[in-house]
């Protein structure tokens, strides 16, 4: 294999791969058409035979809509990985522009003609070409495994998040429990990262991240219990449909605030980004990761978590995809999720970082109490008959 020494080499290799695939596809089409003509076989296991495709191209539309209904499309494209990864890339660019405007700067400007819109692509290309350094004495298997594991676990949680009633990968009667079971994996990945780097700063940063995540998981789960109580079901689609009259944020504002803040702590964003403190701990538990390892953890997995929490906030408290009928429900869901994402990205430019003991005391004492307070309010409202579980 020739070495890739420049961007034009990269492009030439991509063109070669595409050409090979096109030639293989062309041979397949010609061969099957031949077989059909010669042997009269009309029983090929294809929805449209290739020779029909050439003579009658409009049959392609029904094939495409049929393909869009399959599970594979859902997993890989729409509510699944491609959509979330694109959302993450745009959220990354949006964060940098937003923070720049707040700090009277301009942000990324040069990549792409208009205000740096191609900056995420430039970042990924840069990270792809950097060397992957493994520290001496580090555990090579785990060190290489963790970035992949982090992305896998982040993506696994989007399997039950519905973008609208029709577009969901796996409709589960225990959607809420599945999400929290998957989110419970993150402390393990942080711990393995910290340990396998074989270096002091990542170890301390990883232990702090572990303490923080474990402390804020309980108020997070308790604050979603209110939405479950009001809708009477653990299924995320039922929770959204129960908000058809009023959104739950009207009846559970304290829980919404607790969920938002605990989400900030779980995602390790400001003001709770002590584990990845840039100036304090030399970038904390990620210090030894370079190149695409870094890009996978800090780029993709973090923004996938941002999407997950924004989507969950929208589903639990803001009425999901319910909105006026002149626009499709998926549009309302994405709009609300984008607004929540902006609110998640904002505190980084505004608030100072919390100290570790203040952070932990807040998590264990104050937010737990606030979540329980709202559960009591919910119980009182349900018993008084103001809210009937199932339809607010």
């Amino acid at each position, binding site marked *: 294999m020739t070495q890739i020494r420049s961007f034009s080499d990269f492009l030439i290799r991509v063109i070669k791969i595409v050409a090979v695939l096109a030639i293989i596809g062309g041979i397949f089409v010609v061969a099957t058409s031949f077989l059909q003509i010669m042997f009269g076989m009309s029983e090929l296991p294809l929805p449209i035979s290739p020779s029909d495709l050439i003579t009658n191209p409009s049959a392609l539309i029904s094939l495409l809509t049929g393909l869009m209904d399959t599970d594979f499309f859902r997993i890989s494209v729409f509510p699944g990985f491609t959509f979330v990864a694109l959302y993450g890339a745009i959220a990354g660019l949006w964060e940098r522009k937003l923070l720049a405007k707040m700090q009277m700067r301009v942000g990324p400007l040069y990549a792409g003609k208009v205000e740096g819109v191609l900056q995420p692509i430039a970042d990924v290309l840069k990270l792809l070409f950097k060397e992957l350094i493994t520290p001496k004495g580090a*555990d090579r298997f785990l060190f290489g495994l963790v970035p992949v594991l982090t992305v896998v676990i982040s993506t696994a949680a989007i399997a039950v998040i519905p973008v609208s009633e029709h577009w969901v990968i796996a409709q*589960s*009667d*225990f959607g809420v*429990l*599945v999400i*929290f*079971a*998957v989110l*419970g*994996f993150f*402390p*393990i990945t942080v*711990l*393995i990262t910290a*340990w396998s780097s074989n270096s002091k700063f990542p170890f301390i940063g990883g*232990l702090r991240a*572990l303490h923080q995540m*474990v402390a804020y*998981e309980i108020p997070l789960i308790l604050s979603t219990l209110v939405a479950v109580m009001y809708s009477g079901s*653990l299924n995320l689609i039922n929770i959204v449909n129960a908000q058809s009259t009023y959104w739950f944020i009207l009846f559970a504002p304290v829980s919404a605030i607790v969920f938002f803040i605990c989400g900030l702590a779980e995602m390790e964003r400001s003001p709770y980004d002590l584990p990845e403190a840039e100036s304090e701990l030399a970038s904390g538990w990620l210090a030894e990761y370079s190149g695409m390892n870094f890009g996978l953890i800090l780029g993709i997995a973090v923004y996938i978590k941002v999407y997950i929490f924004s989507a969950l906030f929208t589903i639990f408290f803001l009425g999901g995809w319910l909105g006026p009928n002149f626009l499709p429900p998926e549009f309302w869901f994405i709009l609300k999720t984008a607004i929540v994402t902006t609110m998640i990205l904002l505190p980084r430019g505004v608030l100072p970082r919390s100290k570790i003991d203040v952070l932990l005391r807040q998590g264990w004492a104050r937010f737990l109490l606030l979540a329980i307070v709202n559960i009591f309010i919910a119980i009182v409202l349900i018993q008084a008959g103001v809210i009937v579980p199932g339809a607010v």
Partner: protein
Amino acid sequence: MGAIDLADIVFYILAIITLASAILALEAKEIVYGALALALSLLGVAGFFILLDATFLAMFQITVYVGAIAVLIIFTVMLVRREKWVEKEGVNRVAGIFVTLLVALGMGLVVLQSNIGQRVASKEAASFTQIGVQILSLYWPVIIILSLVLSAAVIGAIALAKLDRG
């Protein structure tokens, strides 16, 4: 035997994963690998729960065991100073494995000879609303005792931490 369907294949794969990681948890030279293998075998058990139509239980198994207990075990193991874990020389490994296999075979044959394979569950799996109703109405002493045990554990942990510091 009948046709082998997807449930059988999933069962065999899960069984291999669970048993292999359980063996690895005991035999690994590097103790953090062993703790991680323990987490993997607990995940395999959660998979078995899903196969038995107890999805609710499987989710709680993952949240509690893998999300909390495995994390605590890995955390503790990581902070232990790594002296050499010396293997005693006189222990006869092969005899141990042989006896284990004999005992497992015996117990397995006893279970298979009974008519446990012919029993069919007559009701469908309990939904979580039924579990909740039963917990709050019929099994309420269990909840009270569990909450007392949890309070005792929390108070004990705080007392020990205070003793350590003061």
